């Protein structure tokens, strides 16, 4: 996998993370600081205590003295333990808060950034990197604090233990450094292998997860049963699992090799330590208690040393992850998000929209394939425009550009004389009431959904638009009416809606917003003929004094529009009123004839 060079260096990332903690929760530091002395002194005390004890027993001191030694030691331990518990408990709560703040900041960014940033692969990767880390329970910009402390503690540990050992033998110290270095290299070899190959098994894991959730989904069950997909799905699952297991084996073979090398190093290290200390005992340089203490110090020392390697590595990793957050927050925006020119005043309504030589290519598209090529079009004030064309001709792309979701690759789009980039894009969005083909609900009440707001809901208006959209009967059948919650399964009392009902709900929401421009993309695909006809009949009323764009495969709808644009392969092939285009006898007329064929009384029963 290609890893572009990170934008920020490690120190700037660390500073960024610490600054945010300081900004959001100063008390966090208060509970973290006591852990430093505790973390260094406790292990040291644990190593020193047996020495004290053995010495005091060996010198045949009275039982009171022995009890005093034990008593003092454990009193210290008790205080330290209680203090540590208190700090940990406080920190746990704060930690949870911080990672949620990051999650929320990412979500907000995701909802406000240019729409193009939510469906271009590169930006999605950035978003996912940041979000995955924030939700991982090990949120890097917060846990970096722990790693830094760990490094600091390890350094202190190496210093204190190192001084103790240096008193006995500088040589063993050198040996310990050497062995820690080898351990570090082995760990790095193992980690690099994992880093290099991780993507391969992560992909397999994703496939396994996909298959499992696919099998679970209720929507999929019909196809799975009718087409007897059982064998296919189970074979695939078993196949991926086998592939995954192959990787597990490879990784564990390497980790076993690491274990063996470490065991060998321990063998050499402990052997040398014993040899040196025993010689010293024989030379009467140290007591039995010293022997225990020094031996503990030597074994402890390598743990501190390895700790430094681990923490440095850990900090590097976390810094990369902090970089993900920053890169996402600093993602390039092509539209204005704060300031912009003023929206049209009431006198300037309805608006006109002008496209000059607009071309557009999706960032994920292969090669030079443009979704739109050189489209020039002026939609007049209050005009009702229909866009028709075959699947994939660019109809939806065109309205997405007009709504300000994408930035044209070439050319410009103007609304009332200003290009979209001049407006504050959030203000610009307020000019559009749109119903798109893909339907998504939120787990909120019908009233909140229609008004798209939690407060200041005009309930009479909600009821009114619901009636206009043809949903009044459905709402009347619900015990909680417009206060029923949507999306069955999220809350206990949430309700289910059919495809047709959802489409009507989308229409109601667009009507509630009552914006100067109405965009409808296949709003009747799931509606029955009666409901479809009702919408047609009301279309003029709904779009009175508004500029509107209507996309549909049902060409009957074009009758209510002033002008029809026929798109073909991203270009405008024909443009005019229904009668003009029928007279022209071109593509539109052909399409219309095809669709009318079976509706004509004289159609032969094919």
């Amino acid at each position: 996998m290609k890893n572009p060079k990170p934008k920020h260096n490690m120190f700037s990332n660390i500073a960024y993370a610490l600054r945010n903690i300081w900004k959001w929760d100063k008390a966090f530091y208060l509970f973290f600081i006591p852990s430093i002395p505790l973390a260094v002194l406790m292990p040291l005390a644990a190593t020193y205590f047996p020495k004290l004890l053995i010495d005091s027993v060996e010198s045949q001191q009275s039982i009171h003295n022995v009890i005093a030694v034990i008593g003092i030691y454990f009193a210290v331990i008790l205080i330290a333990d209680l203090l540590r518990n208190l700090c940990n408990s406080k920190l746990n709560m704060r930690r949870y808060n911080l990672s949620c703040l990051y999650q929320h900041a990412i979500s907000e960014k995701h909802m406000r950034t240019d729409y193009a940033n939510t469906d271009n692969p590169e930006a999605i990767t950035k978003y996912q990197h940041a979000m995955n880390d924030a939700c991982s329970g090990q949120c890097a910009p917060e846990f970096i604090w722990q790693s830094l402390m760990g490094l600091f503690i390890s350094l202190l540990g190496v210093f204190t233990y190192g001084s103790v050992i240096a008193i006995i033998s500088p040589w063993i110290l050198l040996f310990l450094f050497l062995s820690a270095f080898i351990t570090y290299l082995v760990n790095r070899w193992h980690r690099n292998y994992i880093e290099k190959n991780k993507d391969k098994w992560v992909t397999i894991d994703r496939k396994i997860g996909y298959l499992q959730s696919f099998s679970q989904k209720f929507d999929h069950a019909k196809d799975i049963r009718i087409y007897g997909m059982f064998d296919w799905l189970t074979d695939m699952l078993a196949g991926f699992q086998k592939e995954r297991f192959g990787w597990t084996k490879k990784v564990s073979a390497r980790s076993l090799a690491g274990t063996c090398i470490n065991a060998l190093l321990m063998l050499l290290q402990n052997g040398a330590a014993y040899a040196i200390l025993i010689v010293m005992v024989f030379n009467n340089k140290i007591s039995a208690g010293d022997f225990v203490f020094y031996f503990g110090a030597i074994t402890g020392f390598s743990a501190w040393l390895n700790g430094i390697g681990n923490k440095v590595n850990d900090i590097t990793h976390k810094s990369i992850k902090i970089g993900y957050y920053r890169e996402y927050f600093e993602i390039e925006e092509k539209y204005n998000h704060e300031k912009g020119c003023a929206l049209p005043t009431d006198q300037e309504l309805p608006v006109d929209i002008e496209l000059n030589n607009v071309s557009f290519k999706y960032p994920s598209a292969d090669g030079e394939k443009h979704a739109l090529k050189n489209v020039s079009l002026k939609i007049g004030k209050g005009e009702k425009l229909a866009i028709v064309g075959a699947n994939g001709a660019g109809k939806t792309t065109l309205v997405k550009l007009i709504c300000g979701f994408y930035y044209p690759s070439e050319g410009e789009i103007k609304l009332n004389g200003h290009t979209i980039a001049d407006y504050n894009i959030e203000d610009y969005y307020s000019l559009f009431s749109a119903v798109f083909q893909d339907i998504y609900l939120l787990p909120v009440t019908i009233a909140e959904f229609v008004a798209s707001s939690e407060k200041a809901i005009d309930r009479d208006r909600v009821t009114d638009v619901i009636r206009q959209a043809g949903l009044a009967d459905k709402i009347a059948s619900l015990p909680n009416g417009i206060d029923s919650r949507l999306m069955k399964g999220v809350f206990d009392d949430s309700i289910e809606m059919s495809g047709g009902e959802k489409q009507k709900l989308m229409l109601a929401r667009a009507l509630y917003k009552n914006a100067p421009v109405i965009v409808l993309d296949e709003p009747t695909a799931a509606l029955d003929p009666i409901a479809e006809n009702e919408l047609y009949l009301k279309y003029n009323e709904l779009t009175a004094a508004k500029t509107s764009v209507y996309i549909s495969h049902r060409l009957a709808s074009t009758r209510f529009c002033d002008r029809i644009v026929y798109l073909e392969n991203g270009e405008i092939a024909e443009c005019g009123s229904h009668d003009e285009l029928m007279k022209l006898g071109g593509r539109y007329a052909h399409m219309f004839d095809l669709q009318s064929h079976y509706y004509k009384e004289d159609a032969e029963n094919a």
Partner: protein
Amino acid sequence: MRKNSPNIRALKLLHSFCPSYFLLLVLKSFFAKLSPYFNLYLSAEIINEIIGTRNKDTLITLVLVTVLGNFAIAVIGGILNRVFNHKETLLYQREAQYYNTKTLTLDYDNLENPEVRQLRRKITESSKINFHGKQLLLNSIGYLVNITINAVLALILGIEMFVLMFASGFSWLIVLLACLIVGLVAFNVWYSFRQKDKMGQVSRNVSQTMIDENRIDNAIDCYNIGKDVRLYRQDKLIMKIKNYAFDLHKKAFRTMESKRYKLNIPLTVAGVLLEAIIYVFVCVYALLGAFGIGSIIKYVGFVETIAGCITSYFSVFADIKYNTPFVEDYLAYFDIPQKMYQGSLTVEKRDDNEYYVEFKDVSFKYPGAETYALRHVNIKFKVGERLAVVGMNGSGKTTFIKLMCRLYDPTEGEILLNGVNIKKYDYDEYLAVFSVVFQDFKLFSFPLGENVAAGTDYDTEKVTSSLRQSGFGERLASMPDGIKTPLYKDFDNNGVEVSGGEAQKIALARALYKNAPFIILDEPTAALDPIAEYEIYSKFNEIVGDKTAIYISHRLSSCRFCDKIAVFDNGQIVQRGSHDELVSDENGKYRELWYAQAQYYTE
């Protein structure tokens, strides 16, 4: 022991997935636990030797045994650990297969049954978030094995200590200390039980809020709703929902955390006190001369371990008890009966495709619903017929299809295939008679050919011709790897995105590939443009051939090429006949539907 029987059942099931798992668990734990004892024991010997006779050869032997022994234990432990991890992976993989198999063969109506859905949700959510269920059971067993090995090792090596202590006689101080130790252990056991009990409810609350939060987050996955969020300024609404879930969780979490902190204080104090008394206890013996000074650390270690094991035993049993309801849920999923699979008749393979289907007074209510979705439906059609089914939204058209494909069994009445109740047929064989394109069909992020054939082994020729027939030929020709091209980019950067219309054509090709005697199309052209739609219409007879076809559509033009039309209204068939017959019925529903659409095309 009655209460533990689900645990034993679950363990037997898990054991069947990988029989050597438990043996390796014991071996691996043994070597993991051996190392500290080995070191405690030998370092005590070394210290005693240093304090005592200081024999060079003995010391060298002891040191060599220590370091080489440690090496051997580490290497053998590493190997065993590796093998164990492999077995563990296998066990979980096979368990996943088993679970998936059950899911895939669940009766369709069970999938919709709220109880089954809730059961499955409980199983996945609680296992994902807290590892409750099978995983906690396996973990608990792992702990149990560890504790037992620990206790056994400590007891074996500790026998020596007890013998030495016994030999050195008693003093009041020792009796007092021994009583204190027993008392503190008893306190620990009692208190941790009480703590588990008190924590149980709060931690359940936290899990529940986590589950809720997770579900809400899934429901508002912002990736999909980008357009709506921006145009309708839903960001505030979404943040409100997020904050609602977050606050709920935070509150529960805080309660749990502060409760845990408070409840832990006595345990911490008792723990430290216990350790201190054990030290005194052992030191007193050492001062009495029961054993060498070097053994102090070792014996303290033994006594501590045994005391710790007693507390841990009770704690693990408390965990197992707490986990039992989750294990019961887990098993209950596998116990859901599969009544669809009870039939055994084979469907006669007829070369002449001479099949007929009959609905005899069929009524149907969805599980949990109060009103009937279908009422008294009687219809019979035979091979080669083309039936159009029309009606308003919610009139029962799709339900009718689902019953015919036996995704549900009728509440009343019966459905016959060639005169025999369809319940009597082998389920898989019965389903093989139908090719269906559902309104909400689904495709997979795997290669196109596999999608069409619904399998990995397929006839390339037949896949290609099916795709051509469904009108996908042109796009197919432009695909880099032909039918091997993966659909969607989920897993493969070479994957291709297909539009709604193209997906519909692929779904149709899948139905054609299956080549079943009945072909059912539910709104198969909803996402197609008029030209593609016309192609399907005009080729309809060619596509369907001599099969029986049922066509559901809101585009009534499709009725023109069907022999018979059934008009559904409120779950009943209100009209039946040919287009010409029905359209001339002035008061009929069909005429109303037809003119609502046709008026725009027929002037």
